[in-house]
């Protein structure tokens, strides 16, 4: 078997690992336009903050490709997928495949705003972005983040740690509006403001001004913020250009079925570029997140190697900690429409906030601030779609933990199929 994988990040590397559990000898080629070791882009903001060194960005050993017997073509771009089971590289060469995985991920969405081409305006997606921002810090006093999502805030936190005056400009009413409800997000916003990060909500930038280099950002309301760096955190755009003019169906991303197959036989897609179904809502969407990319890479790899594994769906979830305030949000956090039940517990003094969203007595989402340690237990109830009527009144208890769901596990054995649950029940007669 001759496998080709495009993109050497979360989804692509995970696919290699899973293909090799089934097919020890097949030929695997991986192609990436980034000429680096296997690194985690999620750690880039920690690198920018000076918390970890460049070496710590690597999440797999340097001999990974050798160990997995993979031919790695780095620093070259795949320009198109050709109809007769071949791909074409930027240098004009063509490579044939039996099975193809498109794991090209996504890139920072660059806004259509005047002045965006100026020196000092960055996205934060690749190691090169982080290095360029880092280089510019010597001449930077102030920076403006456009966007109050995960990337905007992570970048803000990092630059604040590097003693830069940071202003975050957020179009929505509050930060983290994609992943969190207003009240939960207010804890994060308040903490960041208290620590000296300036956050402006309900406002957009009108123009980035300066000669060659950025000098300031003009806001909709006419205010001007002087800065040497602008970071755009306006979400991501899937890298689908290479499948233009093919029969591979695209929508927002590359559309895949539950086996992560595209609409063309033997071509699979996984990760930030793949549009699959959401485990909770059933909608066809992209939850562009690391754990989803890993899980999809794994399932796609197994199927490419001849197994028949279904992907259960991606989940919108996130965990962030700024200035010692951890928060985790998961699933539906801002329910719209009928039939939802919301449980809330809060203590503003202790910065504790817990919100659980149920539908038909099943958990569909939660937001936790400060007290996050049991979030995975809630997560498993969501993933396994368990009726929690019998423990509903205890879900928000301070001492809620795994033991509290033991009766539910006994009642729903068919949903808890992992061997670890058997191991608990063996001793639980």
């Amino acid at each position, binding site marked *: 078997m001759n496998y080709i994988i495009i993109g050497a990040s979360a989804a692509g590397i995970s696919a290699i690992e899973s293909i090799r559990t089934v097919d020890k000898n097949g030929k695997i080629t991986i192609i990436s336009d980034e000429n680096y070791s296997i690194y985690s882009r999620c750690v880039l903001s920690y690198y920018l903050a000076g918390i970890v060194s460049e070496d710590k960005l690597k999440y797999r050993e340097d001999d990974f490709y050798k160990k997995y017997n993979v031919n790695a073509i780095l620093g070259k771009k795949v320009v198109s997928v050709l109809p007769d089971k071949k791909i074409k590289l930027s240098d004009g060469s063509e490579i044939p495949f039996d099975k193809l995985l498109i794991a090209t991920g996504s890139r920072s969405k660059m806004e259509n705003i005047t002045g965006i081409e100026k020196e000092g305006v960055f996205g934060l997606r690749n190691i090169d972005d982080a290095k360029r921002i880092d280089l510019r810090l010597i001449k930077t006093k102030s920076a403006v983040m456009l966007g109050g999502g995960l990337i905007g805030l992570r970048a803000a936190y990092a630059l604040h740690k590097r003693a830069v005056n940071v202003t975050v400009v957020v179009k929505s009413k509050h930060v983290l509006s994609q992943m969190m409800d207003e009240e939960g997000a207010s804890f994060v916003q308040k903490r960041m403001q208290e620590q000296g990060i300036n956050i402006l909500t309900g406002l957009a930038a009108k123009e980035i001004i300066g000669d060659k280099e950025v000098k300031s950002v003009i806001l909709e309301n006419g205010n001007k913020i002087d800065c040497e760096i602008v970071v755009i955190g306006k979400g991501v755009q899937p890298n689908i250009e290479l499948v233009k003019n093919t029969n591979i169906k695209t929508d927002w991303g590359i559309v895949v079925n539950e086996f992560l197959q595209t609409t063309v036989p033997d071509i699979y897609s996984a990760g930030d570029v793949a549009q699959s179904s959401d485990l909770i809502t059933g909608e066809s969407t992209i939850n562009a997140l690391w754990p989803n990319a890993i899980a999809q890479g794994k399932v796609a790899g197994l199927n490419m190697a001849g197994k028949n594994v279904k992907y259960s769906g991606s989940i919108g979830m996130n*965990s962030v900690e700024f200035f010692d305030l*951890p928060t985790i949000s998961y699933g539906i956090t801002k329910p719209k429409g009928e039939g939802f039940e919301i449980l809330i517990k809060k203590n503003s003094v202790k910065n504790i906030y817990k919100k659980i969203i149920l539908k038909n007595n099943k958990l569909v989402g939660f937001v936790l601030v400060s007290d996050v*340690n049991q979030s995975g237990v809630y997560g498993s109830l969501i993933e396994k779609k368990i009726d929690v009527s019998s423990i509903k009144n205890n879900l928000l208890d301070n001492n809620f*933990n795994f*033991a509290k769901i033991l009766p539910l596990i006994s009642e729903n054995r068919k949903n808890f199929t992992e*061997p670890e649950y058997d191991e608990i029940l063996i*001793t639980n007669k």
Partner: protein
Amino acid sequence: MKKVYCEVSKCVGCKSCEIACAVEHSKSKTLFIAISEEPMPVHRRNVQSINKLIISDACHHCQEAPCVSACMSGAMYKDKDGSTQHDEEKCVGCWMCIMACPFGTISRRKKLAIKCDLCKDNVKGPMCVISCPTKALSLKDVQRGEL
């Protein structure tokens, strides 16, 4: 692979295992000094209960470990022996693993994720097992099918 099992009918909830675990993972490895260490040593085993049922729970060293899939820095990994281990050097404290662990067995100490490591650095083996006065805890071979 071996892991620590808890025989629920024998667990009386005395928390000896929690203390033994915290001490084993302290700098001094002695109870009296450990309690004043900064940061405070954290136990990786938790005695929990529901109704009359008491269980001492910790990392199950899952076959397909959700914490490993979720860990975005490569700090959480499957060791050759099948156990799930954590590289403190790599951990950035993002709590993706906490979000993913269905057993809620990972805790936080400052910016580090903390979980059961089966006392891999101690030849005597898991100290919780040794400390358990009722023998509710035991280190046993895990029988799991192929993936």
